[in-house]
């Protein structure tokens, strides 16, 4: 099973960390990473199992990203990430993002994130070739890649 894992230690109690992660997602979510046509205005995350997870554009339109699988405050959150490798919502695709909040004393929390089932993207060559040529999707990836390369060179 293919997954990515990362973690961060935050100087805050677990309940606050959980609250900022879930209720205030738009305060930390990288603005450049969204899929709707217009600029992203906010993020909707309904705090209950099966709750929606979506972005709201400046035009007021909601673009789905996935939904809530497990909502267990303040320790555990599992989200279904349903964006495919073409950056399009696919209701049949479910990759899981699990976030665990582990207290380390009263005011420090380890936040560990795993994004798994990545093999389900099954990036087919044809699909990738198509999306590389389009805006967003892999074109965005390539641009990021190139920008990063330019930063390193500078």
């Amino acid at each position, binding site marked *: 099973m*293919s997954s*990515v894992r*990362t*973690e*961060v*230690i*935050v*100087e*805050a109690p677990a309940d*606050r*960390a959980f*609250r*900022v*992660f879930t209720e*205030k997602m738009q*305060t*930390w*979510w*990288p603005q450049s*990473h969204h899929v709707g046509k217009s600029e992203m205005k906010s993020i909707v995350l309904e705090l209950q199992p099966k709750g929606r997870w979506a972005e709201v554009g400046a035009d007021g339109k909601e673009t789905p990203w996935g939904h809530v699988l497990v909502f267990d405050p303040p320790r555990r959150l599992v989200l279904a990430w349903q964006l495919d*490798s073409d950056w399009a919502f696919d209701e049949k695709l479910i990759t899981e993002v699990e976030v665990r909040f582990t207290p380390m004393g009263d005011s420090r929390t380890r*936040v560990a*994130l795993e*994004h798994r089932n*990545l093999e389900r*993207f099954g*990036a087919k*060559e044809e699909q*990738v*070739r198509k999306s*590389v*040529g389009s805006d967003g999707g*892999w*074109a965005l*990836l*390539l641009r*990021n*890649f*190139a920008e*990063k*390369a*330019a930063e*390193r*060179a500078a």
Partner: protein
Amino acid sequence: MANQSDRFAALADPTRREIFEKLARKPLSVAEIAGGLSVTRPAVSQHLKVLKDAGLVTMKSEGTRNVYQIDFKAIASMRDYLDRFWNKALAAFKDAVEKEK
């Protein structure tokens, strides 16, 4: 085996980025790549070698032509992308939590 930093280094050069972006649209021969670029064909071959060594493009011979294309296995690495994405997101999350009272 080329790693991520080889790829970054290979794409640090603007001409190589231009070549790479051309190939992202479709597979091309050396002559086709050189057309429209203000560099000589030997220079293009040299750039292609760097991209190939970095695992970003692959080459196959079609008759007398060498045709280059993006190495989709390397680029289609959603994993690398998400790895960088979540690291960036969690760093921003840490800042947001620690500002919150």
